[in-house]
């Protein structure tokens, strides 16, 4: 290759100038909204939580109380919008990649959580110490549910609504375990259809 007589500075200036037309287009609102969501995940609130992800064959056998079981639509998949809700008991945030991050800190307001999840495009049944007979547990739970963390400040998990099979429902049940201490357990399952309540 021939020598153009350009020194190192010339070459580096050429390199620098070549990307002069590259500009960052993302509005700052999008950046700070995402940052707020990240910050919320790290917020420290008193309490202890543990996550149990139920397998393909699941059954909850606890006294019925505080459950909410209204699907968003009869056809299963909800119309979704970006959601950013932070309450003392739980948070729901839609991420830039359309996944939904849910943080549960306290055993409160299951019906409101279900409604917010529905708005975010996650059909769900949310129970607090409740009892339902499950539909079939689906193996796609591993694809729908990822990034699950149990920490002192809450149970955090991320749901991919687009991976939920049509008609499926995410079952979220949280209750105090019977271990003698103040431990909250969140059990999550992906059901093929809305479960029937216990009689």
């Amino acid at each position, binding site marked *: *290759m021939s020598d153009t007589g350009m020194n190192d500075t010339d070459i*580096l200036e050429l390199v620098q100038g*070549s990307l002069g037309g590259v500009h960052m287009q993302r509005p700052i609102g999008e*950046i700070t909204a995402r*940052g707020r969501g*990240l910050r919320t995940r790290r917020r420290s609130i008193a309490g202890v939580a543990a996550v149990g992800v139920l397998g393909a064959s699941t059954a909850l056998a606890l006294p019925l109380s505080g459950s909410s079981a209204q699907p968003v639509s009869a056809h299963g998949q909800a119309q979704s919008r970006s959601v950013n809700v932070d309450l003392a008991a739980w948070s729901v945030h839609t991420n830039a990649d359309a996944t939904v991050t849910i943080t549960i800190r306290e055993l409160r307001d299951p019906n409101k959580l279900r409604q917010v999840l529905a708005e975010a495009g996650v059909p769900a049944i949310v129970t607090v110490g409740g009892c339902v007979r499950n539909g079939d547990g689906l193996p796609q739970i591993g694809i729908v549910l990822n990034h699950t963390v149990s920490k002192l400040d809450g149970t955090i998990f991320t749901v991919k609504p687009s991976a939920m099979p049509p008609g499926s429902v995410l079952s979220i049940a949280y209750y105090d375990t019977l271990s003698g201490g103040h431990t909250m357990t969140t059990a999550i399952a992906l059901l093929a259809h809305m479960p029937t309540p216990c009689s």
Partner: protein
Amino acid sequence: MRKRGVEQESGEFAEFYLSSRDGCLRAVYASVGDRLLAEDLVAEAFARAWASWRKVARHPAPQAWVVRTALNTHVSWWRRRRREVTWDGRDAASDAASAVTAAYEDTDTLLDEQVPAALRELPTRQREVIALRVFLDLDTETTARTLGIAPGTVTAHLSRATATLRGRLALSIEQETPSS
């Protein structure tokens, strides 16, 4: 008082974002080789900067923090994809960037393709040094701290990268320069 503190932080971050975003994007683009992927990585890095603004604002080189975070995110995303992407032993980062972003290729760009193509051919570490020294205009010491390498190594990488780029671009420069 607290609200004023929050407003002040918001203003500081906004100023930082507006003044740094282009340089950070160019640095990451130079390193990963794909424009849209770079924008996603930089957006994520700035979001993390906002989430940790009190710490990042005190960093000696916040722009470097953003670029380093973006590059680390790239590695993280690539590792997640590795299960689905076959790898024939070539540079993994370039491979992942190409595989992930083939559908994103912006064929209507007005960019000069020669320089980005030449940058993509550099070894990863040389690309990163170029990204920080050239596009963020960081000094050798700061570049070394950001990448976790010795200052002498930064100088060596820069020298080798410049030599390679000179050879790679020389032919293109001659082709674009009319002979006298």
